[in-house]
């Protein structure tokens, strides 16, 4: 596709204007992002400090830090990621390497796409009905982690599928040709070579999980629990819900709002770092393969 156009000036200024217009619109996205993040940095930066991150709340939620919600979030998200990564990678391996690509395969892919489109709040409902009530786990880290892991399954399955399919078919055949069983080929070649790509998927999923609010509302998040969680069967505070609580508490806006800004900044920074790292890694890997 020609990138440098012959310059016939008068008739083409319409083109140039259109191009400029779309460029402006496209870059406005960056401006908007900077505006949002910048504002949060500006207002939240005053509040965030090492102390803020590592100390628990005081005076209800009007002072102190966010250590407890932070720890709670990390607990739930990590557990959710572990469960989701295990199941998602296994399912991705099945779809990519071990299925006979027949009707069952198509059915499962259809279901994965369906699950991907279900709103997170519906996952929350399901988690409530199944894990919290029917299985009797109560509002707990375990219930929340299980709910979140289901939420992350579609992303992780697709990620694993792409990662495994991306390993060159020739290498897999070479391994088979040497008498490696399908499982041996999978572990020694496919999985080993797909590992970096898998990791980027996990990082991305972690970023998304940390920011989810709806599914944790009814399955794990506590409004105010000034103690670190001691067992997976307990509820815990979590960053996104803590932020929401601060926003809507209304009792002493002058004091809760700065806390809210600090919380928002910490949360968005975590998510940002994970998302950017995952995206950069993924695009770097793509480039390497296309050389």
């Amino acid at each position: 596709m020609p990138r440098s156009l012959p310059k016939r000036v008068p008739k083409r200024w319409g083109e140039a204007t259109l191009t400029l217009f779309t460029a402006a619109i496209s870059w406005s996205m960056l401006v908007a992002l900077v505006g949002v993040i910048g504002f949060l940095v500006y207002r939240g930066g005053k509040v965030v400090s090492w102390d803020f991150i590592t100390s628990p709340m005081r005076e209800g939620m009007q002072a102190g830090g966010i250590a407890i919600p932070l720890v709670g979030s990390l607990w739930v998200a990590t557990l959710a990621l572990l469960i989701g990564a295990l199941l998602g990678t296994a399912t991705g391996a099945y779809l990519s390497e071990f299925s006979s690509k027949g009707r069952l395969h198509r059915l499962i892919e259809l279901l994965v796409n369906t699950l991907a489109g279900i709103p997170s709040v519906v996952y929350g409902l399901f988690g409530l009905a199944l894990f919290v009530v029917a299985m009797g786990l109560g509002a707990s880290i375990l219930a929340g982690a299980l709910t979140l892991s289901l939420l992350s399954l579609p992303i992780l399955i697709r990620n694993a599928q792409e990662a495994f399919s991306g390993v060159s078919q020739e290498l897999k055949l070479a391994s088979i040709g040497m008498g490696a069983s399908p499982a041996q080929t999978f572990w020694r070649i496919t999985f080993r070579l797909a590992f970096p790509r898998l990791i980027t998927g996990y990082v991305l999923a972690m970023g998304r999980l940390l920011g989810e609010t709806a599914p944790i509302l009814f399955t794990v998040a506590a409004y105010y629990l000034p103690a670190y969680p001691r067992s997976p069967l307990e509820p815990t505070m979590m960053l996104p819900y803590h932020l929401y609580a601060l926003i809507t508490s209304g009792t002493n806006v002058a004091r809760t709002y700065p806390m809210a800004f600090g919380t928002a900044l910490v949360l968005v920074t975590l998510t940002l770092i994970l998302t950017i790292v995952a995206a950069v890694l993924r695009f770097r890997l793509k480039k390497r393969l296309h050389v």
Partner: protein
Amino acid sequence: MYKLQAENVSVWYGTHQALYEVSLASERNQIVALIGPSGCGKSTFLRLFNRMNDFIPGFRLTGKVLIDGEDIYAPHVDPVLLRRRVGMVFQKPTPFPFSIYENVAYGLRLQNRLSEKLIRERVEQALQQSALWDEVKDKLKKSALSLSGGQQQRLCIARALAVRPSLILMDEPTSALDPISTAKIEELLIDLKRSYTIVIVTHNMQQAARISDYTAFFKEGLLIEYGRTKDFFTNPQHPETLRYITGRFG
């Protein structure tokens, strides 16, 4: 007893028939060349012997395929074990993105039964047999991808040799290489004939004439002619063979 034998073998992929009643046999320590135009079924025939066609959907076979007198398509035969006895080298060199050493050791590690010392010995033997040892003995830990195309292919051959297969299958092993690497590998194959039986698919008739003991000419799924290479090229029996040979020479 023949080393390898096909008896009235017909192959289908779904409704499409790829081979029609092919019968062919060879004793051990021979090089058998399979030639013919594209799509004639020579690759399909080659892959019968390590059951790589099993992966193609709709694959069906009638007739018998025997190695050392054993029917390799019998229900009790484990294709995985079969492939450890039959080595394969592909058209495009496919080294794993590991070190040179690990590439050759790959097949040896599959069984988990050899000591590291033994593995090292076998790796060296295999690299020597494939005339690569002198070139890589000082950089065994380096990535296999740092080798040239010809070296990579010899590495793939070493990799196949390391597990001491009794039969080696090669699918156009030199068509992706330059003439010098090709010559080196042809020398290698003639040398390997002393210990191995080799079946090689080639689109290069001069290559077949140079290195093989027997040649088989396939066309549209049929085995047109099969005979000692010397006679095959100087006095082909079948008019089709003559037409093919003279069409390509000159």
